């Protein structure tokens, strides 16, 4: 369990995030990043961050953390939580060519999470150019 996601400390807002991994080939990684960015920019009500970036064989792994909202919002199916589910469904449907699948979010200290953090640079969307660069440079494994 990633402690950064479920806060058990009194006074903190307990939230939950869902990990969604896109697995494009190296050649299509930049296109996927661009497409993802366009979907995320369309509705900025749902908190999304790039949680992991890695490469395995001929595939890039782009992991997004999509915020379902606070535990209270999730319990009562608040509009923000429902919007998050809708966004997930949209990404899974529209980007089905890139095998989107639910995954556990990588640990914040892992190389793929650190690489993702480096690329995010304070923006909420995926930076296509950097992803494309990483597609060529990220070591296998």
């Amino acid at each position: 369990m990633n402690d950064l996601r479920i806060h058990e400390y009194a006074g903190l807002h307990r939230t939950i995030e869902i990990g969604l991994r896109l697995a494009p080939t190296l050649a299509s990684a930049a296109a996927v990043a661009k497409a993802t960015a366009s979907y995320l920019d369309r509705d900025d009500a749902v908190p999304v961050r790039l949680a992991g970036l890695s490469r395995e064989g001929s595939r890039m792994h782009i992991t997004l953390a999509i915020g379902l909202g606070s535990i209270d919002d999730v319990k009562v199916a608040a509009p923000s939580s429902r919007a998050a589910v809708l966004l997930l469904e949209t990404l899974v449907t529209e980007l089905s060519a890139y095998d989107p699948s639910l995954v556990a979010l990588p640990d914040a200290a892992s190389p793929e999470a650190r690489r993702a953090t480096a690329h995010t640079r304070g923006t909420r969307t995926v930076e296509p150019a950097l992803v494309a660069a990483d597609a060529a440079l990220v070591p296998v494994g």
Partner: protein
Amino acid sequence: MTEEAEVGEVVPDDSIVTATNRLGRKVPNLVVRGMDEREIFAQAPLLDCDRVHWDTIDDFDPQVLLADLPMDAYTRRWSDGQHRVWVPKGRGFEARELIKEWCLERRVEAVNMRVEQQVPFRDLDKIPGTLFQELVAAAVDWIYPRTYTIRRRIVADLDLVEDQDVRSMMYLFISDHAARYDADRIGRNGTLNFTAFILGKLRTWPQDAARTAYGRNVVGDRVALNRLADRFIADEQRLPTEGELAEGMNTSVTDLRRREQAISELSSMRNYQSLVGGSIDSDQYDQVQVASEETVEGDVTAYTRNAMVTKAILEAVSGPNAPRSRRAQDPLALAAVYLSFWEGLSRPEVARELDVLPKTVAAALTRVMGQMEQADLS
């Protein structure tokens, strides 16, 4: 129906403390034609007996041998077709030898003749008219609507038994067991009434019926395999592999397969879920399924399969039957599934994280898994 009993609490007269230390209510005494069940059973007093029971290859009525036994003896026909003779306590083995001789002389082929000592018995023929039959019918009327799970198990476990057969089967079951009802036995909550006695017997009815139909070993194996599978599902949210099952059963994989085949072939139990991957005839049958230490992420089919599972889950939590514009998303179900299967939390842990009751989590998981099953992805 039940609540926690507190220490030192005064229990009202109509309440009982159950075996699990909870408060429950006594089941009512049955009344037939204005007569209480105790008055009816008093007409067939309880006897302390030994019982001889056996089977025969051909049809046989044990009533014909009673006159030749030098002791008081009773018989009563049971729905399972086995023959039973009750004799005074302490004379069971003597009666068995006499019955054996009697059968030999008359060339009646007796099978598996055995004695059970000190069993209660009532000669229910002494109850006049149709009082006893009406009493059993009244017991069925009271018990039948309150034993849904038991009825479902009977239908699920036994071939050729349908829902509409269970009521008459229950009548026969109660009629069979009524002869051993001991109304005077005093337990923790006073004397046991007839309905409570039968409810106790009914708890093992499906298992006993399956044993009678398919044999003790097959049913015992099935129960043990189900327990193992339940344990793995509860602890690890997955079914056990063949290797793990074999280890749990203290046997080899080859023997496990033989037993599983016996279960599926002999019983054809309708709800039996084969734990052998693929069909018996498939090529994969010869492969041993063991837990792999290697990651299967590299498998070329893994991406596609994971994507299909993800799509099915999101469809399940998005109100799959409604048009897209009117869908009612269920974030709680998604969170429950995600925490269970991707974060590896147990149900109680998920409930604690989401600040809901475990049964709410269970219901959400069941909903999603049901959709997955329909999509053939579970």
